[in-house]
């Protein structure tokens, strides 16, 4: 039956548009107040310095050699990171797309972990593996009896690039791999029958077909690398600054809000343009040509070549994934040098001290809550973020899922993605600039942080809700009715479970993103209410093995929580095509 497409079955489009507006009301009000208004304030601040010629100050700032060099480095490192991520991710995407093997589901789930891993945890993990005091250097020093750590990893460009690859490979795996896995393999075979070598078939048929997926993945990776903050701050050290880091310095260390605003504006211009292109591209991914079910497109690893490929790719993926995280966890329970404290001298070895110390307020300070409190604070903020993000995201996602072709929806859809391309530091700065005076004075309010986290999580919430809501087709309601289900039973057995799973996935995204968010939080968190990433950053900035150990202990806790979250998401997905 194709009555779904017949004209008489839908309410009039005017009535539909009215309903859809109603759904959009709260999400749009939220975006207006907490996204566009703060960004507008940045704009105003940046342009308001010179009364006569409003753009002069802005242009002078962004064309200064220093800023141009900054922009050059930001673009350069992002481009380099993106290329490396593609080079690393595409073979993996191919393997996951075309082959069926034991442990694949687990590998796929694991590969999703870095994506929601807080940047500071990633930074701390690489530090624990390759840093001056990291396992590799310690091992080499012990092995060859060296006085100095042989590998200089921290504060190098390589550190930044490796962390970015670690962080974003899952985007390539998911975006390209998903698309590839549904692409009919017969297309490539057809090319070979027509006389193309396997390499030509790949280059002339498969790659062009994949190109929207590759481009979308590359753009998203580039956007994330372009606005990278925690990784650069911790692993890059003082020698390297991206726009994002510089905005933070200017705002927090130098308190030069106008310059920070100008830089934010520059960055915003770049990322928003990229985000709009990305939204267009990923929209095209939604209706690709003749996608086939996976069972049809995948084969087993039968040839020695495919086994070799699988071995190398799986080993590389597992290595990149587990080495730093494992190093982090191990380092958080290891004391390297004897340390003196109230209980006397502690011998080196395995220890849970760093975890125990978390609940002690060693500074006896009013403003510095003990780190254990930070966990409680973070969980509270994450809970609030979940509530906010779901209650705002559900109506918008509902509108998008039910009427995908409505003009209103097609116009508003890219709007929801904009926070994705807005750096967290810029958001934080916008909050500082805009929300500190009437009519909206939230300076002292704890709400600022969940509000900022909701903005960051919003695109992810929408993108995980929409496909799931789309799966609830009217046909399912009819099928249930035909099997004897009265309307209430349809709601109970069909709608609520389906929406429920989608909500759980979205909630998990919101929760983990809120837990790990650092860029915006670093700017707006009140000192007496630090979140876990803020506490980690503080510990990393202080000398001593105990502080370092505590930073790693906190990172490990955060890593465990977010990994649990992402593994739960993998289990809860209904359709195997997700948009992130």
């Amino acid at each position, binding site marked *: 039956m194709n009555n779904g497409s017949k*004209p*008489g079955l839908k309410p009039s489009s005017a009535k539909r548009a009215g309903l859809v507006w109603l759904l959009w009301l709260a999400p749009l009000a939220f975006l207006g107040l907490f996204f566009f208004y703060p960004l507008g304030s940045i704009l105003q601040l940046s342009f308001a310095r010179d009364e006569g010629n409003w753009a002069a100050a802005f242009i002078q700032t962004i064309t200064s050699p220093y800023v141009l060099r900054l922009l050059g480095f930001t673009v350069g490192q992002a481009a380099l990171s993106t290329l490396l991520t593609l080079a690393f991710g595409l073979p993996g995407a191919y393997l996951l797309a075309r082959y069926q093997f034991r442990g694949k589901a687990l590998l796929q789930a694991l590969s999703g972990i870095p994506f929601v891993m807080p940047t500071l945890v990633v930074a701390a993990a690489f530090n624990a593996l390759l840093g001056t005091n990291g396992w590799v250097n310690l091992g080499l020093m012990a092995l060859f009896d060296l006085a100095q750590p042989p590998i200089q990893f921290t504060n190098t460009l390589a550190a930044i690039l490796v962390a970015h690859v670690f962080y974003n490979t899952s985007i390539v795996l998911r975006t390209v791999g998903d698309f590839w896995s549904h692409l009919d393999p017969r297309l490539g075979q057809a090319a070979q029958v027509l006389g193309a070598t396997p390499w030509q078939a790949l280059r002339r048929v498969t790659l062009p077909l994949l190109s929207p997926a590759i481009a979308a993945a590359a753009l998203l990776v580039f956007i994330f690398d372009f606005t990278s903050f925690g990784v650069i701050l911790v692993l890059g050290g003082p020698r390297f600054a991206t726009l994002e880091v510089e905005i933070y310095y200017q705002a927090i260390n130098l308190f030069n809000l106008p310059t920070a605003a100008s830089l934010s504006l520059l960055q915003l211009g770049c990322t928003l343009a990229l985000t709009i292109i990305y939204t267009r591209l990923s929209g095209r991914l939604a209706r690709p040509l003749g996608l086939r079910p996976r069972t049809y497109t995948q084969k087993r690893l039968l040839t020695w070549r495919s086994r070799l490929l699988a071995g190398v790719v799986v080993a590389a993926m597992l290595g990149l994934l587990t080495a730093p995280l494992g190093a982090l966890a191990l380092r958080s329970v290891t004391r390297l040098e004897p340390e003196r404290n109230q209980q006397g001298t502690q011998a080196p070895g395995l220890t849970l001290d760093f975890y125990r110390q978390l609940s002690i307020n060693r500074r006896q300070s009013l403003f510095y809550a003990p780190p254990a409190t930070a966990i409680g604070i973070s969980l509270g903020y994450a809970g609030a973020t979940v509530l906010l993000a779901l209650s705002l995201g559900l109506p918008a996602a509902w509108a998008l899922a039910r009427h995908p072709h409505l003009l209103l929806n097609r116009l508003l859809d890219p709007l929801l993605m904009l926070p994705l391309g807005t750096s967290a530091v810029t958001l934080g700065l916008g909050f500082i600039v805009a929300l500190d005076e009437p009519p909206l004075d939230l300076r002292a309010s704890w709400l600022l942080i969940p509000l900022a986290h909701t903005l960051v999580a919003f695109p992810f919430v929408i993108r995980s809700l929409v496909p799931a809501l789309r799966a609830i087709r009217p046909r399912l309601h*009819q099928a*249930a009715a035909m*099997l*004897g289900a009265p309307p209430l*039973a349809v709601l109970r057995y069909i709608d609520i479970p389906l929406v429920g799973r989608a909500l759980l996935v979205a909630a998990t995204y919101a929760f983990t993103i809120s837990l790990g968010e650092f860029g915006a939080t670093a700017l707006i968190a009140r000192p007496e209410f630090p979140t876990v990433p803020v506490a980690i950053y503080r510990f990393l900035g202080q000398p001593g093995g105990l502080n370092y150990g505590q930073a790693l202990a906190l990172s490990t806790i955060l890593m465990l929580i977010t990994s649990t979250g992402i593994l739960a998401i993998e289990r809860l997905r209904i359709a*195997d095509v997700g948009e992130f």
Partner: protein
Amino acid sequence: MTHLSIQNIHKSFGRAHALRGISFDVAPGEIVALLGPSGCGKSTLLSIIAGLEAPDQGQVFWEGASLAGIPPHRRGFGLMFQDFALFPHMDVYANVAFGLRMARLANDAIRPRLAEMLDLVGLAGFEGRDINTLSGGEQQRVALARALAPQPRLLMFDEPLGSLDRSLRERLIGDLHDILRRLHLTSIYVTHDQQEAFALADRVVVMNAGQVEQIGPPQEIYCAPRTPFVAQFLELANLLPADIREQDGGRVAHTAIGSFPIDAHWLGPAQLLIRPDAAQPGAQGPLVLHGTLQDLSFRGSLQRIWLNVNGTALTFDLPSTAALPPIGQEMALSLMPHQALQIFQQS
């Protein structure tokens, strides 16, 4: 006794008339196929019988009582959807058990019934499987088991094999035929595929543009199509414009390729059907066509030829064993006089 009676159903969507006065009855245990091209209204009719849509005019009766106003879940009918509409958040067991749960059956009663159903459709042991991992054929079987499980009074199928490939379809038609006969289920089967309709149905309702063209057993439909549309839809392709005149005390159809004696009780414009399956090579008999063998295609059980007669290409299906001249040569075909010709009045 009639089970289901469909009386004068009209339905339009905006300005499009989907159904225009459909009436027919279904007897207990009968399998009726609704056959027609896409857009002919057959699926809309199914929705109306199911109660998913209301007719603008006309009524559906079950054992003499009108079903107007009775919602789908209280009709006790089953419907198997074209895209199966399996619940994506439930496993095979929960999908098939859904109707039984709705009927408030206890778990102890559900379990044996479910095993029986899965066994019937050849999916024993699939209980715990995730719906999203099943192949098209397996999903189709789950959908069938789900529709059968609550023992509906009437089971409807909406092009259930449409999305499957040919060989799988062939096999499932056979399975479906066995299952429906064994359960003696009253069924309505919607399809655009004449092979499916003929293979499964006791009676076929041919529909076109919202109206019934012909109702009858498969053999009758095939051997005696009542309208040019039915003939064409069944790929009986040789339809020629004709003019019926009196000649030598009988009636003759004049066409571009000659005159044919026919039985007709009217005079004037008409359409003449020359059945492709009622000819054999040779010049014997009263009705002989001479022409050029234009093309030939071998189909296994038969060979299809295109014969050019005075500039008109006619199609014929000949036995595979028939000896034919090379392409481009003249040949003669003799038509079986009582079967080969059929005349339709021009409407």
